[in-house]
């Protein structure tokens, strides 16, 4: 789905992955002119704002530049240090200049945006790449094989990765390895790619296709496998992407042929190595899996070619493509509808009508509502295969009962070579998460107490352990509930003990007043006179004498003789007494008056209501002392209410004590809740403990229905039950859940708990009914008659696995992830097959050129410095057959000395060079047929060679830090020992001064080619033990194999030495072992007459096929087959084939004569299945190819 577009003819670079927000930089392309033919240039930065649904890119900055660009990249250098917050933008210019920009400054609108600039290169700088591991390293490539490594920290002096490759050619692309930081690859339009090891400062391997049609436009390393890379070809005749593995660099691992015309650019996703983008001159943008070759996605594009394509590093689903019609488009590969695209068109249309108000009506056009569910073609399907980044690998979800459900998927080891673990187990773990251990422990204690009814001891324990006084108090109060004579105990708790009081009173007396008082009492026995004078005393006397108590009392009160007044009032009757008390209380203002008032008037409510709340304790004590049972609870409540409503939070908490005394659970809960942090489980536990105990107490003392639960308490209890459940204590939760309540929450919770415990469900109906009672939205009746499955939607998944395209399977080489260790077994088998090689006739054509196709020797050559002194002692006793075998390694003498500083291997370590070919040569020389001999001969070298090239590989790619010395010591030892066993009739490889890496076609290198000294005959080159048999066989198995397996098959080059012009023209691929040796005629034995018919028939058949074959590929294949059948003819000459095979071949000939190719194929199958594989592997597969083709072509 297209997300955004910008109308620019420009090179593009995404901001690095670390950059947020995501920017796209564009620099005017040097190669294309846009529609305006403008020659000005600019560097622009756009922001990818996905929250804006329109197709417009938000322009952030434009910098008018004096350069036009061939390449633009954006590296994260200095981002983490903060020096350059947006990294560095690196541009390759037209005149050999490399320019560093600070994108942050460009965005800021600064004028000085160039950090540095150098024009060291010759010609346009087309290739740039930033090292992922050391982001300060940038590689650049330009004309004349120029490659520079720039250190952004020290930009002045670039380095070179090694000596320039010859011949000088343009560098079209360059790429750092994604796994090993010191490996760099460069590619040229000629189709050659060179891999450089910067530690060695030299090229370590060159890769190129055997046919020169490869026109390299793109190069990319595998994101995960260090030794793999792809090359893309721009040539319309060969519009392919080749995937190479350097461990098997003889031919591409895989060839992707999805494009019909040349490929202009490729980009490999770093987020998913299954996704390789390519765009070509067929105007397609494809996303394919390089590992299977399958096309996973084709982007909907217009008909324009794209010349540049880039994945967005930060957003893995996003890519940008620059097309020749002057547009950069941003796409998502996740599919989606293109509604927004149309919307843009609509908007553009509207805007050309003038700001949405085309007719000047003052009213903008109403937005055009596009109908939903539009035409199906607007829908773009996503990738066929889900990309890695949307596959959730891990998860953890909570579920009821404190269970945590977790799963994980062990990451696939991306290490090259480790094959998938045998059988992954896909487990889901259910865990119990207990976060509140203390809570649970306390809850258990509480349950025990309730069950055992040991409330008193429980409370006592609580009192003992309580750390806060208040807490102690509360528990003490609660405990009292279960004791006799609770009120007294309450009083005691409040600090009022009757005994204590008496003592206090006694003390108070004793100290001073007691004696005095008794003395006073004694003195009262005197006579007195009754005075009736006019003063107050007299008046009172008169009143008393007349029995007028009222007046007397009034007089006393008036005279402030309170005691007298009260005493008189007592005698004056109840009524007077009350009145007098009133007047007394009204007059007296002492501290305790009101208490006395209350006591006297029994008005406890008054106390509770009006006492100073700081005296709540006293008020409570009074209530405890005097209140009647029926009013006690209410009074406590009242006091509690007052305390609770008081602003002082300390007092608020004290209200709880009142409620406890009152036995009022609801109020306690409410009050407690107000004061506590309700979310803390422990505080809830605190509350619940008290509530439960109090409820038990209330049940004991008062006859209250225990099942009645207030709303608030119910809520708390269910909260508590929920908490318990969340800790996994479902059973406990059930016990605390109030029974007999019809509150919906609780009923539902109970049901959930019961089921969670695994009980038989209470019945769906009950539950449903419960829910029905709850108000619902528009939930209709749900369950009935849900509609049946609809027709399945369009299927776009291909059923079953696609078999890999034919011809792509090479044993041991197929799986990019396969470790060397894994490869080994198959290699061994190949070696044993290769045992047939020795059956080469000794008279084999001298002109034969075998290209050594294996990656093995080629790989280690660079490290084998010249010279094989040890092997010099081997002389060839059979001059006429001695091949001046040039092992590839020694042949590489040219480059070797050029690398000073290279640790010089010890002599022993040199040995591998010659020991590798020796056994071959030996068996070759002997020409001994028969498996035993050959297997010995071959088995020996395989170890070392295998070992050595693996070592080399690991040296280059894996053991980044390891020392180089001695890497091959062990193999060397082996070989040294082995060498003794080798028949010494082999001409040792001479020291060679010829760079084997150089392509044969290169005239320069041929000039340097030394004549083969000491080689009287030509050079029947040897077939390296690696690989050949495998591919050959497979080719047989997959007749349509597009790759003719050049390297493995020596003969082609030999039999057609002139096809490619120069002798030894590189027919093979990958590593071209340059062995254009002076040719000398070797006379071959004739083929026995009785078998000549085989040759003529086969050759005739191939000729017929060639005539009728139309496509070049088939022709190539047939040519190839023709050459390879030489193996057969050679065997015929030697008469080494077993009679059964011979007769089988004759049968095939017969069937060919009758044009019954199917029968021929059947016979072929029979032969292959019954004969010794090693005997037939060289030619039978080829024969099958021929037969199959013949059958197909119907010749």
């Amino acid at each position: 789905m297209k997300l955004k577009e910008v109308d620019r003819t420009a090179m593009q670079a995404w901001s690095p992955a670390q950059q947020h927000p995501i920017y796209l930089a564009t620099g005017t392309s040097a190669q294309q002119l846009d529609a305006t033919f403008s020659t000005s240039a600019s560097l622009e930065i756009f922001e990818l704002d996905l929250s804006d649904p329109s197709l417009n890119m938000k322009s952030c900055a434009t910098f008018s530049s004096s350069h036009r660009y061939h390449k633009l990249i954006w590296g994260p250098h200095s981002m983490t240090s903060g020096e350059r917050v947006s990294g560095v933008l690196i541009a390759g210019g037209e005149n050999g200049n490399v320019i560093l920009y600070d994108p942050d400054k460009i965005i800021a609108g600064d004028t000085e945006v160039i950090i540095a600039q150098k024009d060291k290169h010759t010609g346009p700088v087309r290739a740039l790449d930033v090292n992922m591991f050391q982001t300060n390293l940038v590689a650049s490539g330009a004309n004349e094989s120029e490659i520079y490594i720039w250190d952004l920290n020290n930009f002045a002096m670039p380095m070179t990765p090694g000596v320039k490759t010859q011949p000088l050619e343009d560098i079209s692309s360059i790429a750092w390895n994604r796994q090993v930081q010191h490996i760099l690859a460069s590619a040229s339009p000629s189709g050659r790619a060179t891999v450089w090891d910067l530690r060695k400062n030299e090229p370590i391997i060159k890769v190129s296709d055997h046919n020169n049609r490869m026109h390299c436009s793109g190069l990319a390393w595998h994101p995960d496998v260090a030794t793999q890379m792809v090359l893309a070809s721009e040539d319309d005749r060969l519009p392919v992407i080749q995937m190479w593995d350097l461990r098997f660099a003889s031919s591409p691992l895989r060839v992707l042929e999805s494009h019909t015309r040349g490929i202009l650019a490729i980009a490999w996703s770093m987020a998913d190595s299954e996704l390789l983008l390519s765009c070509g001159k067929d105007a397609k943008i494809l996303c394919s899996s390089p590992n299977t070759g399958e096309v996973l996605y084709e982007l909907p594009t217009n008909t324009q070619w794209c010349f540049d394509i880039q994945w967005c590093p930060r957003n893995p689903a996003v890519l940008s493509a620059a097309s020749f019609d002057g547009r950069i488009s941003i796409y998502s590969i996740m599919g989606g509808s293109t509604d927004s695209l149309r919307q843009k068109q609509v908007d553009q249309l509207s805007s050309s009508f003038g700001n949405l108000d085309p007719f000047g009506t003052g009213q903008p056009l109403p937005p055009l509502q596009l109908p939903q569910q539009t035409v199906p073609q607007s829908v773009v399907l996503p990738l066929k295969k889900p990309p890695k980044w949307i596959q959730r690998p891990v998860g953890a979800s909570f579920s009821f009962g404190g269970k945590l459900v977790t799963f994980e998927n062990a990451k696939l080891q991306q290490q090259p070579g480790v094959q998938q673990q045998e059988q992954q187990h896909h487990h889901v773990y259910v865990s119990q998460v207990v976060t509140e251990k203390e809570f649970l422990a306390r809850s258990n204690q509480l349950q025990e107490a309730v069950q055992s009814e040991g409330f008193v001891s429980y409370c006592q324990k609580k009192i003992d352990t309580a750390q806060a006084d208040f807490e102690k108090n509360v528990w003490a109060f609660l405990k009292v509930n279960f004791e006799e004579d609770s009120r007294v105990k309450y009083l005691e708790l409040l600090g009022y003990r009757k005994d204590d009081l008496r003592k206090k009173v006694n003390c108070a007396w004793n100290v001073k007043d007691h004696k005095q008082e008794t003395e006073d009492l004694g003195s009262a026995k005197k006579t007195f006179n009754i005075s009736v004078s006019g003063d107050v005393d007299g008046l009172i006397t008169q009143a008393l004498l007349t029995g007028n108590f009222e007046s007397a009392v009034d007089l006393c009160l008036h005279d402030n003789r309170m005691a007298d007044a009260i005493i008189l009032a007592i005698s004056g009757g109840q009524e007077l007494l009350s009145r007098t008390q009133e007047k007394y209380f009204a007059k007296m203002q002492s501290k305790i008056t009101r208490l006395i008032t209350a006591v006297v008037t029994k008005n406890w409510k008054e106390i509770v209501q009006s006492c100073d709340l700081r005296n709540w304790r006293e008020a409570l004590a009074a209530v405890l002392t005097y209140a009647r049972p029926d009013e006690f609870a209410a009074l406590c409540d009242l006091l509690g209410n007052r305390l609770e409503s008081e602003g002082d939070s300390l007092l608020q908490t004290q209200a709880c004590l009142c409620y406890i005394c009152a036995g009022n659970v609801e109020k306690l809960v409410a009050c407690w809740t107000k004061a506590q942090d309700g979310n803390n489980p422990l505080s809830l536990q605190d509350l619940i403990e008290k509530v439960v105990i109090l409820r038990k107490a209330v049940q004991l003392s008062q006859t209250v229905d225990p099942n009645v639960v207030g709303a608030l308490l119910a809520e708390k209890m269910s909260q508590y039950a929920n908490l318990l459940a969340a800790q996994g204590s479902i059973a406990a939760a059930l016990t605390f859940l109030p029974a007999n309540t019809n509150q919906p929450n609780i009923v539902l919770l109970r049901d959930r708990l019961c089921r969670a415990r695994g009980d038989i469900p209470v019945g769906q109906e009950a539950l449903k009914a419960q829910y029905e009672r709850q108000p619902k939205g528009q939930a209709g009746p749900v369950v009935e008659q849900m509609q049946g499955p609809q027709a399945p939607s369009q299927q776009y998944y291909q059923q079953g696995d696609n078999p890999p395209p034919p011809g792509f399977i090479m044993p041991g080489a197929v799986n990019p992830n396969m470790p060397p260790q894994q490869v080994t077994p198959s290699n061994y088998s190949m070696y044993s097959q290769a045992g047939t090689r020795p059956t080469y006739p000794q008279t084999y054509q001298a002109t034969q050129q075998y290209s050594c196709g294996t990656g093995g020797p080629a790989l280690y050559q660079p490290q084998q410095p010249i010279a094989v002194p040890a092997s010099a002692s081997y002389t060839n006793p059979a001059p006429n057959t001695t091949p001046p075998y040039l092992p590839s390694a020694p042949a590489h003498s040219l480059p070797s000395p050029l690398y000073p500083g290279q640790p010089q291997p010890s002599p022993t370590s040199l040995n591998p060079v010659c020991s590798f070919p020796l056994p071959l040569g030996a068996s070759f020389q002997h020409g001994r047929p028969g498996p035993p001999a050959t297997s010995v001969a071959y088995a020996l070298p395989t170890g070392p060679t295998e070992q050595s090239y693996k070592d080399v590989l690991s040296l280059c790619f894996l053991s980044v830090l390891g020392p180089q010395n001695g890497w091959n010591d062990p193999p060397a030892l082996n070989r040294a020992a082995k060498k003794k066993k080798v028949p010494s009739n082999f001409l040792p490889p001479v020291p060679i001064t010829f760079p084997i890496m150089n392509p044969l076609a290169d005239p320069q290198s041929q000039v340097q080619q030394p004549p083969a000294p000491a080689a009287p005959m030509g050079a029947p080159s040897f077939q390296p033990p690696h690989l050949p048999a495998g591919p050959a066989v497979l080719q047989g198995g997959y007749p349509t194999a597009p790759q003719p397996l050049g390297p493995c098959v020596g003969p082609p080059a030999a039999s057609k030495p002139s096809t490619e012009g120069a002798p030894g023209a590189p027919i093979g691929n990958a590593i071209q072992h340059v062995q254009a040796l002076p040719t000398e005629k070797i006379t071959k034995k004739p083929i026995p007459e009785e078998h000549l018919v085989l040759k003529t028939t086969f050759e005739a058949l191939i000729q017929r096929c060639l005539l009728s074959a139309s496509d070049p590929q088939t022709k190539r294949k047939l040519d190839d087959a023709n050459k390879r059948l030489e193996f057969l003819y050679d065997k015929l000459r030697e008469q080494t084939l077993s009679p059964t095979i011979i007769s089988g071949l004759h049968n095939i000939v017969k069937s060919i004569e009758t044009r019954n190719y199917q029968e021929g194929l059947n016979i072929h199958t029979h032969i292959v299945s019954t004969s010794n594989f090693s005997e037939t592997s060289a030619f039978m597969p080829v024969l099958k190819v021929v037969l199959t083709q013949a059958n197909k072509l119907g010749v």
Partner: protein
Amino acid sequence: MLEKIMVWDQGPTPRPRETGAALPLSVNQTQPISDSARATQLHLQFHVCVHRPSGASRSNAPGEAGQPWRAAGGAHGGPAAAASSCAREGPRGRAGAPRAGRDVLVLVSPPAPQVSVINTVDTSHEDMIHDAQMDYYGTRLATCSSDRSVKIFDVRNGGQILIADLRGHEGPVWQVAWAHPMYGNILASCSYDRKVIIWKEENGTWEKTYEYTGHDSSVNSVCWAPHDYGLILACGSSDGAISLLSYTGDGQWEVKKISNAHTIGCNAVSWAPAVVPGSLIEQPSGQKPNYIKRFASGGCDNLVKIWKEEDGQWKEEQKLEAHSDWVRDVAWAPSIGLPTSTIASCSQDGRVFIWTCDDASGNSWSPKLLHKFNDVVWHVSWSITANILAVSGGDNKVTLWKESVDGLWACISDVNKGQGGVSALPEGQQNEQ
């Protein structure tokens, strides 16, 4: 395959107690007991690690620097440290201070959480598992996988009985979601094949009851609305749209679609709990509550969005911006009766944010960084009581987080599953985790 279940005693030196045979399993043990089943003690290690509030500062770790999208090789740590080290006492932490007695602080040592595997379910999926969800009661487990199947297991009493193996998707199945049981046993699943399938159990057999094919790309997330609203499913897709499927009875489903909810893809949807604004306590029944339906979504545009239904139309109510990369998951915390709404979101950028909103209008959301991990964070899940957040990341680690009294989020447990492996993080490393 029925595995042995080993339950480890609590305590510092775990001693396995085999319960596989001892437990009177109510399940039919038709499958052989395999030795390969592992006893697993989930690693628990608790740290009182308060995240650095400045966690937004970018990590300079080279691992993080380069390639946020690269799959990191291998899990952290290794199975080296055996299960011998159990809970390690952390530093004495914050005091839990009940407000009751202000005069005294009750010192409570931080609870060391215990996470123990009580059941290991061998799903026999043939490919990666992408989701595993328990039903409402915690007795059935639904799993889904890249092998295109959805499986349902009865996992009561530590057993494992395969109830259903649901085939119908044609691509990897990303998520499953259980509907509330009041509607029956209903499971929704979504897949890369662009379909949402609703499965239903009728008379003991599970069958497809509805298939929704209205998306143009992978459907990444499904989530059922609170049951109070009826049977409504939200689906988020890579085509950027969110669909809302409402059951209208008679087998009919009504579809509403929010187009372009998240450009290039919606990764997660999560409903807000059904809370009537402004009321803490349940409204008297009979009166139709005035619910406001909301859900949150997260997507490839790095945004968390909150959607609200107004007059039957879904409108974008809020855009929450804090993540700098794809939002992988959002989880709206269950209501615990407080007026605050809470959402957790996690992202490709390794960050987990906790968003809270105190006002009823739902307009002011403020983010708080829970932690910045070094790898993608794929999934966040709230406990039922909304006080613990489980975070699972690309490093195959599950961490449990809890908000302390002072509002800071602390990692209370670091669960390293699989192979019984224990990753013993050195002290102080936790912050860099």
